[in-house]
């Protein structure tokens, strides 16, 4: 009875929308979670008839999998740092400096993003052989950079634009050189936007499989690379365990970044000027 009352109170339509929303977006994930702990779940049982941790022990004892997680995070961290390093200057320039071909540069990031990545990998591999980058860490980092250049220039650029000029000028006024102004004032104030872009960079690096595979095999196997093969080779219970394990870190990342990742700081990046 209390349930009916509660629903009445909370407005029926809102409840229905919420219900559909949750089922649609989280049903598949919940299913994975159940599968990961199920021992036997024969058709047409609605719930597993037997629970088990078999695949968990299998996965957690597999060094290749554990080390792939570490590797993925290491790569993602480095990719994020490097793309910060090379993209932040451009983001700043787009936001603050009027220079010839500014728009051309800005849009070139969008348009190159439009070429299907899969169509590029052979050409990239040829290039990487010439540069001796195959099967190197540097090679992987570069491959991952392809996906992040656009977000890493656009979003921070908007963040820089939102720093009020008088705040920079007052800093120069009190005696800070342009570099010091950038370091102590502009950069910290644009931090939320930069963090959002970094989170996206980090995620896209964690997700990258095809390019990593091409360049990284044999020595560098990241978690999505392993995941692909697991989907092909193991029954769904095992795949689910992997899924849960591989999803956890990104969810943690979301929680950590929650403060910054919101509609406001993000969407500005797509309003070009």
């Amino acid at each position, binding site marked *: 009875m209390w349930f009916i009352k509660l629903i009445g109170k909370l407005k029926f339509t809102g409840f229905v929308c919420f219900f559909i929303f949750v089922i649609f977006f989280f049903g*598949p994930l919940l299913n994975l979670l159940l599968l990961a702990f199920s021992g036997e779940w024969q058709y047409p049982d609605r719930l597993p008839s037997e629970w088990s941790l078999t695949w968990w022990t299998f996965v957690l004892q597999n060094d290749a999998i554990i080390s792939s997680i570490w590797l993925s995070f290491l790569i993602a961290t480095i990719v994020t740092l490097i793309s910060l390093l090379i993209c932040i200057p451009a983001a700043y320039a787009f936001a603050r400096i009027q220079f*010839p071909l500014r728009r051309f540069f800005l849009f070139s990031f969008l348009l190159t993003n439009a070429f299907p990545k899969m169509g*590029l990998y*052979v*050409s990239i591999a040829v290039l990487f052989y010439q540069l001796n980058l195959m099967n190197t860490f540097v090679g992987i980092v570069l491959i991952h950079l392809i996906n992040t250049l656009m977000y890493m220039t656009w979003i921070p650029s908007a963040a820089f634009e939102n720093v009020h000029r008088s705040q920079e000028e007052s800093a120069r006024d009190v005696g800070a050189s342009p570099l010091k102004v950038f370091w102590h004032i502009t950069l910290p104030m644009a931090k939320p936007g930069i963090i959002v872009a970094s989170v996206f960079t980090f995620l896209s690096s*964690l997700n990258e499989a095809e390019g990593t595979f091409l360049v990284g095999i044999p020595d560098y196997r990241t978690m999505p690379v392993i995941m692909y093969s697991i989907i092909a080779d193991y029954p769904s219970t095992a795949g689910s365990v992997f899924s849960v394990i591989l999803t956890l870190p990104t969810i943690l990342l979301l929680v950590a970044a929650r403060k910054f990742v919101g509609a406001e700081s993000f969407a500005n990046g797509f309003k070009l000027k």
Partner: protein
Amino acid sequence: MSRLLKGKVLGIGLVMPSFLTLLVLVAYPVMMSVRTSLQNRAGEWSWDNYRYIFTEPLISQNIRHTMFVTIISCFFVLIIAYGIALYLRFSTRFFSKLINKLYLIPMFIPGVIAVYGFINFYRNNGWVARLIGTDNMLPIIYHVRGLIMINVWFNIPFTTMLLLSALQGIPNSIIEGARDVGATKWQLFIRFILPLSYKTMLVAITFLFMGIIGSFTAPFLIDRNAPQMLGVSMQQHFSVFNEIGQSSSLAVFMFLLSSAVGCFYIWSNMKHSKKELS
């Protein structure tokens, strides 16, 4: 004058690190791909590959299918994301707060895993079928329906985020002013909210279009075998048929489609900023 020049040089200098990376890692391979697409098997220059993709009925079907899936997916994503964004913007109810906390999560799930979970959830013997009975179940996996659903799943968070920020940018006094003069909810939406947020919708469409048209994993694992999405077809021509040139020409074709939409977006942005200046 020299200060101006210095500024220009500095600007270009700052853009160079990322632009050169782009040039080497993307622009150069793109050019190589374009070149490959213009060579036949014997390595001579020719339009053969393009002739193939525009005359082969299979590819025409694939193009139509790709356009269909892309447009329908964009449509649904926009509608649903817009709905959620509206709800989040204008409702302060308990559920709205909860959804606000949850809606970004799918963006953080690795793509492969999402597809995997999706298949297990919706397949003919999947959990949904078990819960509601197989007979009540519409085919979803191995059906274009499933592909559109997963596209929706993947793209809702990003799109909702963009639209929500646009809606939050509409001051309350504009909405209240409209209500004050007697606009109904529907008129409010059509005459105010929509016109004041459609530019962001263009942005959203651009990114949706680019993302969906070039997708591979989801259509490969979820769509029917034919017709195929161009991403799948391209991969098949490349690694199964060994038709490198044809696969490159498909890539170039997809690139041109995306670029067209991209240019539309750039154009609308330019128009926008010009108006702001005046």
